[in-house]
């Protein structure tokens, strides 16, 4: 295997609160290879966005990284000074967020925002930066890019804005793009366009992608590997096909079964009883045990570690070795 581009080891993120410290992320480890698309799925509160924020050093205080390491291409980045981290963001790690409006400054033209980003990270003249910006906009599918570059963000529709954000994220040729729910705010017919664009353009430039989403369908189409988070812990990690079709963790299986599909009409959906625990009430042992239909005594006392269940495929479940890989 090649050396990973991004390596996250035992990441722990804590939020101190009045009722004690909440662990939003508890011992999460994964790698992303150069050019790879890693999907990160989980329900709201599972910690997927916090993982992204922790990697780029943007955890909102009073939250903090309480343990673990983040390595980018051999350099440890979680301990970098804020100034050095700012240079990593944008230059080496690009970001695409859910709401394109919050990632664009409404007071500046697209041209100014793009050229500023380009010139901060690359040694280019104003004129060259603008040329590059136009080329980027053209590449992300903005019609008449040379003219529209002088427009303000509010002149663009939602889908076009997200295209601009993708151009912005890629402006400095980053090695990794973190996309946090990039299509959630968009209409169904536009979602597909944006996902395809993101995938294509990153592949073209050799940038790896960490795609954070709650939408399994998006992951299925886009990602090479997928990480399933539950209550701040990694439940399963493996190639997207294996995880979707042969999940080892009961939570992943339940999650897959609960999604209604177009192809075959089930009378009832598989449902996981209950809801994900709040961070202040994570049960002892496996965090999923109260909702798990297969839980054994061990699950209630001892927390299972993520361990290999198949090539490149790991799950955090005591039963994972014996369990028949179930079909969806």
């Amino acid at each position: 295997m090649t050396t990973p581009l991004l390596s996250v080891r035992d990441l722990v993120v804590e939020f101190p609160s009045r009722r004690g410290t909440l662990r939003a992320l508890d011992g999460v480890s994964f790698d992303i290879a150069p050019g790879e698309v890693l999907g990160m799925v989980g329900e709201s509160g599972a910690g997927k966005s916090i993982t992204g924020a922790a990697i780029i050093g943007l955890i909102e205080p009073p939250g903090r990284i309480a343990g673990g390491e983040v390595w980018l291409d051999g350099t440890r980045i979680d301990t970098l000074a804020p100034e050095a981290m700012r240079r990593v963001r944008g230059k080496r790690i690009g970001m695409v967020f859910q709401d394109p409006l919050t990632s664009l400054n409404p007071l500046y033209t697209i041209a100014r925002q793009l050229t500023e980003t380009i010139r901060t990270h690359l040694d280019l003249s104003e004129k060259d930066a603008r040329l590059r910006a136009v080329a980027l906009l053209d590449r992300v599918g903005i019609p008449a890019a040379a003219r529209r570059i002088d427009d303000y963000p509010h002149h663009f529709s939602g889908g076009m804005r997200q295209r601009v954000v993708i151009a912005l994220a890629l402006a400095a040729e980053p090695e990794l793009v973190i996309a946090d729910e990039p299509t959630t705010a968009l209409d169904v017919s536009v979602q597909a366009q944006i996902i395809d664009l993101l995938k294509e353009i990153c592949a073209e430039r050799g940038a790896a992608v960490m795609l954070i989403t709650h939408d399994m369908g998006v992951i299925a189409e886009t990602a090479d590997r997928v990480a399933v988070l539950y209550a701040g812990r990694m439940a399963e990690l493996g190639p997207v096909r294996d995880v979707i079709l042969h999940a080892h963790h009961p939570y992943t299986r339940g999650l897959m079964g609960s999604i209604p599909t177009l192809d075959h009409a089930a009378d009832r959906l598989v449902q996981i009883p209950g809801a994900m625990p709040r961070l202040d009430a994570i049960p002892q042992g496996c965090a999923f045990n109260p909702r798990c239909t297969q839980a054994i005594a061990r699950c209630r006392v001892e927390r299972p570690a993520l361990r290999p269940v198949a090539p490149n495929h790991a799950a955090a479940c005591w039963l994972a070795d014996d369990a028949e890989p179930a079909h969806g």
Partner: protein
Amino acid sequence: MAEPFLTVSGLTRRFDVSKPWLNRVLEREDRQFLTAAADVSFAIEKGETFALVGESGSGKSTIAKMIVGLLTPSAGRIAIEGQAIDPNDPATMRVLRRRMQMIFQDPFASLNPRWRVGDIIAEPIRTLGLMSGSDIAPEVARLLGLVGLSAKDADKFPHEFSGGQRQRIAIARALSSRPDFIVCDEPTSALDVSVQAQILNLMRDLQDEFGLTYLLISHDLSVVRHMSKRIGVLYLGRLVEVADAKRLFHEPQHPYTRMLLDAVPDLALSGRRRKQVSGEIPNPISPPAGCAFHPRCPQVMPACKTGVPVLHATATGMAACILAGPPFAQTP
């Protein structure tokens, strides 16, 4: 054939989105109107689930609000078992209000945060005067049990519950007046998938138990496919296709329906490559002339740019497309 349960005919709603009078005078602008729903007609049979699908600006929520009386239609007629819904007629509205209820999208906004769950659920009973004081508490307990919560939960406040549990509370409130028709406006789009499955299953169980008729509003085709018997597809305020759910998914007649289906991600990893869908939804204040879908339509013809197609019978149901049949309405 028996009369349909709900009949909607020629339903239209225009919103005045003009700037304030002074701005209009100074900027020399005319009044502007947004047509959120234009000449929408459909019928729902008793006990079935009819779904309206569409993206933002399709008018699906506007139609739902007109049916439950939250908005007054600009034109058109809505009738339940032949009785017209008229928000200005308090006597019939009183009767109809008991019979129809609504479940909202956001369970964090649809429950008053300052009220106890018991009072929230009992509000329809109290407002409509359906029961006397001492009968209410046991009824609330029964309703909580029905949606999978415990009778003790009546004393709690909404913030003590998760999103899925809140949606159960909202369903219990909707059931409290013993309605026969429930409008479900994106009932699961604010929920996580595993919780969505719980709510969808619950809605189906309740439908079987009480013979409920549902109008399901959603942008999620897989949810619609799972839940409904018949489906209406909306684009920019107009119904472009109505068909039996199964047939709509297998033989879509309108190019827009086909496009929506193509845009759904393939979870089964069958290798079906979804097609690129071009363009975005136009601004509903100034929709394209002719068929509103024509700028995005891969099969567009010159005639589509001038005439507005009307719904007419097709092999599977009804569609408003020149390719699915001949007639055009008069150019407006």
